[in-house]
């Protein structure tokens, strides 16, 4: 905002003495070192905030970074190897399952395309109509009774 000084600080309802007192009480620090310090503190809080955000959202592999120190480096190598083996085994197993699923789906698709064996057959037995229990069935199919 481009602040333009108003010219009403000593207007008709303003008390110049109170205004001067207010100005002395609310005066901003004049020392340049104060402002340099404030700027540094602001930038420090900004940097800390960035670091905090990065810590809250670690990548899954970032845990291996903890093992980079010399005294626990062998443990880190073993852990990384195990993780690699597990990831490889999981990949292979998933590929097998996918292949099986694809084969089953193809088989089902082929079988469903064949004509049904009963399509051309003549049904000799009648299909009984499902009736409510209280229906007088013998009136509908008298020969059965």
């Amino acid at each position, binding site marked *: *905002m*481009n*602040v*333009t*000084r*108003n010219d*009403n*600080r000593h207007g008709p*309802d*303003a*008390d110049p*003495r*109170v*205004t*001067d*007192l*207010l*100005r*002395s*009480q*609310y*005066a*901003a*620090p004049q020392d340049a070192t104060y*402002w340099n310090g*404030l*700027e540094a*503190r*602001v*930038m420090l*809080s*900004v*940097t800390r*905030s960035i670091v905090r955000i990065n810590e809250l959202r670690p990548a899954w592999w970032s845990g291996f970074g903890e093992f980079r120190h010399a005294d626990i480096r062998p443990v880190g190598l073993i852990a990384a190897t195990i993780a690699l083996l597990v990831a490889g085994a999981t990949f292979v197993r998933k590929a097998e399952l996918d292949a099986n699923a694809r084969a089953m789906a193809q088989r089902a698709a082929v079988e469903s395309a064949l004509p049904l064996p009963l399509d051309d057959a003549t049904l000799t037995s009648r299909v009984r109509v499902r009736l409510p229990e209280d229906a007088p069935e013998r009136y509908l199919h008298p020969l059965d009774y």
Partner: protein
Amino acid sequence: MGTDRPVSAEALEERELVLSAQAGDHTAFAGLVHRHQRRAYAVARSIVLSHDDAEDAVQEGFLHAFRALERFRPEQAFGAWLHRIVANAALDIARRRKVRDADELPESLSSPHRDPAEAGELRARLARALNTLGERQRAVIVLHDVEGYKHAEIGALLGIPEGTARSDLHHARAHLRRQLSNLRSEK
């Protein structure tokens, strides 16, 4: 159209800083802090009661601004956007602050008056009178009488209509004059 205003070199420089800061350049953001921290402090100081709270509000305001920087549109005025954020941070701190001690006036401030005893008493009385003002009225009178903002600018900063800022200023002045006139009549 036809409302294009000449853009100053300073405004262009600031726009460059904003664009660089949005691209992740922290040095550019530090440049924006350097440019705006004094005005931001003045805005915050008009709303809160102490220097420390004003400083906290400035830091929080800049931090909020940094986090929201990607949502800022560079064609806007960065200062107006930032000062609004700082004002909101200061209002938040003022609301959270439960204890308001009028005696916490900084002693190092120079007094414009000749009689130290009267000035000290007047300052203490002023501090008490300011405490009895509402947050908004106090902010309005300080922004207007100390910082020189216009009513419309104060309205934009505090999120109130210009007429309300004008009315708040009138009532705040009358209140302070009433409170401090008692002291003079006692003398």
